[in-house]
Structures are given as structure tokens and as C-alpha cells.
């Protein structure tokens, strides 16, 4: 049973020995922390390998570990409809180079997720065809889910008291 569950991580480590920074497995929840340079290749491998077939990109979001280096982490959740398996990828992103490659070429559904992460965290997704704000409006300054965004920060766009 354990061997079945960790096949994803095992294959990942075999295929990308230099890019997998860390793995974690707990009661069927599998997590791999990977370097951002190889994210597209890793995603393609997860999607296309016959024993993995993670054909469904469930979620893409980001986390701000303010004060830690690297500061950001982009988190991916993939699901294999064929094998009923899930995997989580974490990609550390430093503040100094706040970019990561877009995975739209692998799953086109990543489009709006990446725009949301850009909107709220300010992470640039290289290769995204239409990287603009999705929830907030054009003209909003800053990225409000960053931990250093002021709690009382208001955007002086409309109305005298806002």
C-alpha cells in the first residue's frame, strides 16, 4: 500500500534527482518541493507518464512566508482521474526574482489561477499570454495578500473617504 502511494514521489525523484528539493508524505498526501527552473518539465512528466497521468490541474495558489527566504511559494495541486491520486508541488520563489514559468502550456486551465496569484501576490508567471489582474481592478496599487500590505491600506480611487 505504501509503495503504491509513493509511486509519484519515487518516479519524480528518479526522473529529476537534482530538481526535487524535498518530499513529504503523510497518509496519502504527497508533497514535493521542487526548484522553479524545471517546473514545466516536471508538470509535463506528471501529466504524460503512463503510471502517473495527472491530467487535472486542481489548484494553483501562492503563499507568502514573510521573513523567510525564499519568501514566496507557489503551490500546485494535481489530480489523476485515472488513478485517483493527488499530488502537491511547492515551488519556492524568492522575492528578488519573483517569477516562475507559466504552466499554461501544460494545463490551459492554469490561466486564471496564475492571474489570481499574480493579482494578489505579485508573482510574475513567465509566458502567460494575458497576465493582468483578475479580481481587482486596473490601477490597484500593490498586491493585497502579501503580508507587508498594510492592514488598513486603502486605495484612493473613488470617493473622498476611501
Amino acid at each position, binding site marked *: 500500500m505504501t509503495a503504491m502511494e509513493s509511486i509519484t514521489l519515487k518516479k519524480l525523484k528518479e526522473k529529476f534527482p537534482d530538481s526535487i528539493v524535498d518530499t513529504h508524505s503523510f497518509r496519502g498526501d504527497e508533497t514535493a518541493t521542487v526548484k522553479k527552473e524545471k517546473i514545466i518539465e516536471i508538470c509535463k512528466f506528471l501529466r504524460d507518464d503512463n503510471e502517473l497521468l495527472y491530467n487535472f490541474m486542481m489548484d494553483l495558489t501562492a503563499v507568502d512566508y514573510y521573513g523567510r527566504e525564499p519568501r514566496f511559494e507557489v503551490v500546485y495541486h494535481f489530480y489523476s482521474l485515472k488513478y485517483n491520486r493527488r499530488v502537491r508541488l511547492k515551488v519556492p520563489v524568492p522575492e528578488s526574482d519573483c517569477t516562475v514559468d507559466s504552466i499554461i502550456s501544460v494545463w490551459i486551465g492554469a490561466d486564471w489561477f496564475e492571474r489570481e496569484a499574480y493579482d494578489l501576490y505579485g508573482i510574475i508567471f513567465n509566458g502567460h499570454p494575458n497576465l493582468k489582474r483578475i479580481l*481587482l*481592478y*486596473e*490601477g*490597484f496599487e500593490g498586491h*493585497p495578500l502579501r503580508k507587508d*500590505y498594510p492592514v488598513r*491600506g*486603502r*486605495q*484612493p*480611487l*473613488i*470617493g*473622498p*473617504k*476611501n
Partner: protein
Amino acid sequence: MGIINSQQSAVGSLQSGEEQILGSSVLLTKLDAIVGWGRKYSFFLYPFVTACCGMEFMSLAGPRYDLDRFGAALPRFSPRQADLLFVVGTISHKQAPILVKVYNQMTEPKWVFSFGVCATSGGFYDNYATVQGIDTLIPVDVYVPGCPPRPEMVIDGLLKLQQKVAKEKWSDWPRGEAPVTKNK
């Protein structure tokens, strides 16, 4: 009651001879009073519904609480045909220009009803995305807090608005457009 009072005072100022001639077939009053009386019983709502308060508004407009009893029954879904703007729910900064535009499209005289605590003050959405009260955008006549407000509170607010409208004068209108601050 306002119209009857003003009618009595107007009648009281007549000469006794005129009163005898006109009798009960003519009703004398002040123009302000009769217009205010007409307006306060014929509100045409524009429901600007953005959030969960909308469900409460539907119950209010439905048969159980029956806003029709107060002459404010018919929601008009064009601002050109409405004179009472019901702002029902949270207004985000992204939505703010739309609200101001709808307000400016309404013909005067017009009134604004802030339905629920989010429209009134932002409520617990004290954050980067939410307008902290629609009175930062447009003039508001009645605030009804509550999350959501009970229908009785809204009816009470509507009665308060009726009292206010009945007291208005010709010179109170028009008031002009709400100022719109363009994006920087």
C-alpha cells in the same frame, strides 16, 4: 398627516366669505405638501443588489412583508424609471463606479436607501477591497444596519424616508450629479 395639517392652516387663512363660496368642493394646500405627499407614496425602487442582503430584500418585497402597502412595490430595473435607489449589499471598489453611474442615471428627485451594514459602513469587510460605506460615493437618505436587517427595520426605515420626503421643498431639487473621482 402633513397634508391635512397644511390644508387646515391654509383653509384657516381664507376670508370667511371665500370659505363660504368654495365650501368643501375645493381643497387648498401648499404645493410642497401636496407634491411631497404624492412622492412619498409612490416610490419606484431600483434594487442595486450585490450580496446576501438581496435574499432579505426579496422577502421584504414579497407578499409576507409586502412593501406594496407603503406604495413602494414595483422594482424598476432601469435607473431612468426609478427614484429610490436601494443599495442592498457589499459594494467593492471595483463596483463603486457602477453604483455612482447608476445613481447619476436616475432622474431627480431621487433618494438612496442603504440596506444592511455592508452598504452602510462596509460592515465587517474592513479590508482593501470594500467601500467603507456608500456615503463615501453618493448621498444617502436612510441607513438601515443589520446583517441582514429584519424586514421590520427596513419598513421602519422606509417610513422614516417617507417622513423626510414629505417635508422636502421645491428648492431641494435638483441636487446634481454625485462627484466621480476618476482612477488616478
